[in-house]
C-alpha cells in the first residue's frame, strides 16, 4: 500500500471527535424502567432465536469510523497491490556509434548518459523504468516498466555501436509507452537541428562534445589464391593529424607459420580521405587499427578470410563452333569464373534443345531483325544491355516468358525454373561482336552467382542490409553477436541492417555453417564528431498534465466504501430511532 498524497491521512483525525461524540452519547441519562420489553418491538422469532442480531449503536460508530477511514484513504490517494502508485519513467538512449566517443576527460558520452539517467531516475522518484535504444530498429534495453535498479544495470551493459539513424521512431514509441502526460528522457550526443519537431513529452539531453577524429570508413579484403588484398579508406574529420599510422597485423594462415605486421603511414588532407591497398600472403584474419582517438571503435577492423567463390561454368557438347568461340571469349575475360572441373555450383551452357541452364542457338527457319527490339524493363538479365545497331537472327520462338522480342519473334526468354534461352543464330548475327554480348552474358553469370547459397557480400559496414541466398525447403539460422534468429524466406533474402557489428554466421539445419559475413563498426557519418554538442531541451508538456493525469488515476474504491458506510449508518440509525 502506498499513498500519493499522505497529508490526506490527516482526515483520520476526525475519528477523535467521532469517538468522543459516541461516548458522550453513551453517557446520556440512564433511566431505570420496570419493563424494557414495553419499549421494544416484540421479536416474533424470540423462541427460535433471531438469525440476525439487531444493529446497535456500536454498529453505527463502526460504520461512521469506516466512512472516515474511507474518506481519508481517498484523499490520501491510496494505491494497493498492482495499482500501487508507480511513477514510470521512459529513458531513451541513442544507440549510434558516436555515443562511444570520448570527451576531453576521457569519459564516453554513453557513460555520461548512464550517470544522467541514474540521476534523473532518482530525482523523479521513478518506481518503474523503461529503457529504449534508438537505432535503425528501435529496441528495448530494459523493461517495459522494469525495476529501476534492473533498468540501470541493463543500461550499464548496453553498448552503443549502431549506425547513423533517425531517432524519431524510437521517441514516438517511447511516447506511447510512457502514456499521456508522462515525460520521456532522451540522451544523445547531438543537439536537435533547428526546425526539428520533437515530440512534446520528450526532454532532449545532448551530452556530446565536438571532437576531431580519424577513422576507417571502409575496409575490404579479397582473397585469391594465397594472396589477401586489403583495401582501406581512411578519413580525417576536423583539423587533426596530417598523417596517421595504419597498423595491419595479419595472423598466420593455414599454410603460414607466423603472421606479419605492417605499419603504413598515410597522409591525410583536412576533411579528406586516403585509400590504402596492401597484400598479404597466407594470411589469416587481418587486424587493422588506427591510433586511439576520440572514437577508437572506428579505428579498428578485423577482416576475416574471404576467399572468392568462382562460379563454375561448363559448355555442353553439341554446341556449334561459333557459339563456343563467342562464349569462350567471354568466359576468358570474365573474373571469378572457373571452367570445367571446378567444384561447387555449375552454370551449364548448351545448344538449343538441351536442358542446360542457358541455351544458345536457333532452330528452324531464321529471321534477321535490326529493330526495333522490345526488352522487359527492369529485368536483371537485361541491365545495361543496349541493342542499338544489332543485327539479330533468330529461329523458332523458344519456350518461356519473353524478355526480348522483335516483332513476333522471341529473342530471349526465361522459363519458370530459371532456364534462359538465347534465340540467336550467330552465323548471321553480329550480336557477339557488340558490347551487348558480354553485358548480357555478364548478367547471366551474375544472376547465377547470386543464386548461390550464402551471403552476397561478406564484409559490410554499419547500416548495410544483410543480403543472402537460401535454398528452398531448407531452414536457416543467422547467428550474430546479439544471438540467433531464424531466417524466413527462400531465394534472395534481404535482412534489416544488423544492430551491432561483428561476425554473422548463416547456419543451415543440416550443416553447421553455410557462410559468414563480417559487419565492421565503420560509419563515416558516425565518425564525424565535429557536430556533436551539449544541450538540454526541456519537454514541452507542463507538469500540470502529469498532475491531472495522476489525479484521474486516483482509486475509486474508497469512495464506494464511503458511500456504503454512510448508507449503512443511515439504515442503522433509522432502525434505532
Amino acid at each position: 500500500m502506498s499513498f500519493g498524497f499522505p497529508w490526506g491521512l490527516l482526515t483520520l483525525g476526525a475519528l477523535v471527535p467521532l469517538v468522543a461524540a459516541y461516548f458522550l452519547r453513551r453517557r446520556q441519562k440512564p433511566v431505570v424502567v420496570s419493563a424494557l420489553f414495553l419499549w421494544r418491538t416484540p421479536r416474533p422469532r424470540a423462541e427460535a432465536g433471531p438469525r440476525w442480531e439487531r444493529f446497535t449503536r456500536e454498529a453505527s460508530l463502526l460504520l461512521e469510523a469506516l466512512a472516515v477511514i474511507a474518506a481519508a484513504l481517498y484523499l490520501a490517494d491510496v494505491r494497493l497491490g498492482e495499482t500501487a502508485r508507480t511513477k514510470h519513467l521512459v529513458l531513451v538512449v541513442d544507440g549510434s556509434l558516436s555515443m562511444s566517443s570520448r570527451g576531453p576527460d576521457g569519459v564516453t558520452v554513453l557513460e555520461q548518459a548512464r550517470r544522467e539517467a541514474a540521476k534523473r531516475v532518482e530525482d523523479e522518484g521513478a518506481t518503474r523504468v523503461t529503457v529504449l535504444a534508438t537505432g535503425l530498429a528501435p529496441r528495448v534495453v530494459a523493461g517495459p516498466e522494469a525495476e529501476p535498479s534492473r533498468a540501470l544495470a541493463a543500461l550499464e551493459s548496453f553498448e552503443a555501436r549502431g549506425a547513423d539513424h533517425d531517432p524519431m521512431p524510437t521517441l514516438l514509441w517511447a511516447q506511447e509507452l510512457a502514456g499521456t502526460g508522462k515525460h520521456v528522457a532522451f540522451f544523445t550526443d547531438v543537439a536537435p537541428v533547428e526546425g526539428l519537431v520533437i515530440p512534446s513529452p520528450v526532454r532532449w539531453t545532448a551530452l556530446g562534445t565536438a571532437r576531431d577524429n580519424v577513422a576507417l570508413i571502409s575496409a575490404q579484403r579479397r582473397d585469391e589464391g594465397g594472396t589477401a588484398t586489403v583495401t582501406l579508406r581512411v578519413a580525417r574529420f576536423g583539423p587533426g593529424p596530417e598523417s596517421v599510422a595504419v597498423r595491419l597485423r595479419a595472423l598466420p594462415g593455414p599454410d603460414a607459420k607466423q603472421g606479419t605486421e605492417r605499419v603504413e603511414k598515410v597522409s591525410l588532407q583536412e576533411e579528406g580521405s586516403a585509400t590504402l591497398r596492401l597484400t598479404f600472403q597466407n594470411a589469416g584474419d587481418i587486424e587493422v587499427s588506427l591510433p586511439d582517438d576520440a572514437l577508437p571503435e572506428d579505428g579498428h577492423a578485423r577482416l576475416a578470410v574471404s576467399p572468392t567463390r568462382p562460379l563454375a561454368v561448363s559448355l555442353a557438347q553439341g554446341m556449334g563452333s561459333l557459339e563456343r568461340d563467342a562464349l569462350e571469349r567471354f568466359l576468358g575475360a570474365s573474373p571469378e569464373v572457373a571452367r570445367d572441373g571446378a567444384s561447387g555450383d555449375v552454370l551449364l551452357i548448351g545448344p538449343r534443345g538441351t536442358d542446360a541452364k542457358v541455351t544458345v542457338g536457333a532452330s528452324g527457319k531464321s529471321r534477321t531483325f535490326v529493330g526495333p527490339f522490345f526488352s522487359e524493363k527492369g529485368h536483371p538479365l537485361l541491365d545495361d544491355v543496349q541493342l542499338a545497331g544489332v543485327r539479330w537472327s533468330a529461329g523458332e520462338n523458344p519456350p518461356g516468358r519473353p524478355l526480348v522480342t522483335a516483332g513476333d519473334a522471341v529473342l530471349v526468354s526465361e522459363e519458370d525454373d530459371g532456364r534462359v534461352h538465347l534465340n540467336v543464330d550467330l552465323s548471321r548475327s553480329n550480336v557477339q561482336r557488340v558490347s551487348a554480348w558480354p553485358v548480357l552474358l555478364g548478367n547471366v553469370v551474375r544472376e547465377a552467382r547470386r543464386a548461390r547459397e550464402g551471403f552476397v557480400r561478406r564484409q559490410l559496414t554499419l547500416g548495410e542490409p544483410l543480403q543472402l541466398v537460401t535454398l528452398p525447403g531448407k531452414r536457416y539460422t543467422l547467428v550474430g553477436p546479439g544471438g540467433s534468429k531464424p531466417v524466413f524466406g527462400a531465394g534472395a533474402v534481404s535482412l534489416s541492417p544488423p544492430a551491432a557489428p561483428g561476425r554473422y554466421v548463416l547456419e543451415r539445419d543440416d550443416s553447421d555453417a553455410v557462410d559468414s559475413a563480417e559487419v565492421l563498426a565503420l560509419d563515416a557519418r558516425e565518425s564525424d564528431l565535429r557536430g556533436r554538442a551539449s544541450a538540454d531541451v526541456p519537454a514541452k508538456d507542463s507538469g500540470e498534465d502529469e498532475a491531472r493525469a495522476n489525479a484521474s488515476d486516483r482509486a475509486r474504491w474508497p469512495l464506494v466504501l464511503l458511500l456504503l458506510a454512510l448508507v449503512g449508518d443511515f439504515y442503522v440509525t433509522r432502525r434505532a430511532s
Partner: protein
Amino acid sequence: MSERLDEAAVGRLAPGLALALPRGPHRGRVGEVRAASTGSSLELHDFRAYQPGDDLRQLDWNAVARTDELILRVRQDEVSPRVEVVLDGSRSMALSPRKAACARELALLACEVGARQGLSPTLLATGVRSERVQGSACRAALRTLEFDAGDDLVTALGRLPPPRACGLRVVVSDFLFEADLAAMVARLSRGASGFFLVQVLDAEDLSPSGGEGARLVDSESGAALEELLTEDVLAAYARRFEEHQRLLRAAALRSRGALLTAPATESLDALVRGALRPLFVAGGHA
C-alpha cells in the same frame, strides 16, 4: 404521600375494612366461616334419615315426634379460611420509593384486615430470599423486606413452596414482565377460593416522561436500550402497555379473579376507596 411504610395509615384504615371473601364454602381451621364440610356448627345445613353410626345427638327429636322417623340434622363446619398475600420482591417494585412503600402498605393492609377477620394471613415474599411468614410476623417482615430479586415474579414463584388451598389470595406486583400471562395467573390462582391481582404501578410506568434521549435500563435484568423519547416512541409504549394490561386482565378473569391497578401516586386511603374497593369492603370489626 409517605415514601416509607406508613403503618399508621394502615392502622387507621384496617379496622373499618374487611376482605371480600367469596360466597362459597371454605376450608380451614375451625372458625366463623361456613366450611365446605359437614361439622358441628349451629347452622343447619340439611336433614336426612338416620343411619347406624350417626351421632345420636344430631337427631331432630321434634321431627322424630312428628314423623315417627329418625331424622338427623346435618350441620356444616364453621372454619376460619386462610388468606395468602403474595408480594413480588423483584427490583422493579422499588422503581421509586413510593412504589415500594405502596406495595408494602397494601400487603400489610391485606394482612391486617385479614387478621382482624380471623383469616390467618400468610405473607409470601419473593425476594432473593423467599419468605413465608404468618400472623403478626407479617408486619415485621414487611418492614425489612428488600425488593432485590433480579428476576420476575414467574421465575421467583419457583422458589416458593407449592401453593396451598386458601380462602383468598392477594398477589401484589406490578406484573410488568414478559411471560405467558394466562399460565402465570392460572398458577397463582390455583387452590384459592378468591383471587385478586393487585397491580402497583409507578407514575413512570403509567405515563413515562419523554422529550430527550435516554438510556433505558431494565430494573431487573440490567439490559439497556438507547432511545430518543419522542412522542412516537411514547405512543408506542402506551400501545404496548395497554395491550399488556388487556392480556393480564383477561387472564385474571379466566382464573375467576380480578385485576386491581393501584397507582402508587395515590394515597392508601384513596386507593382503598377507589381502585381497591373490590378487595377491601367496608364493614370491618371496628
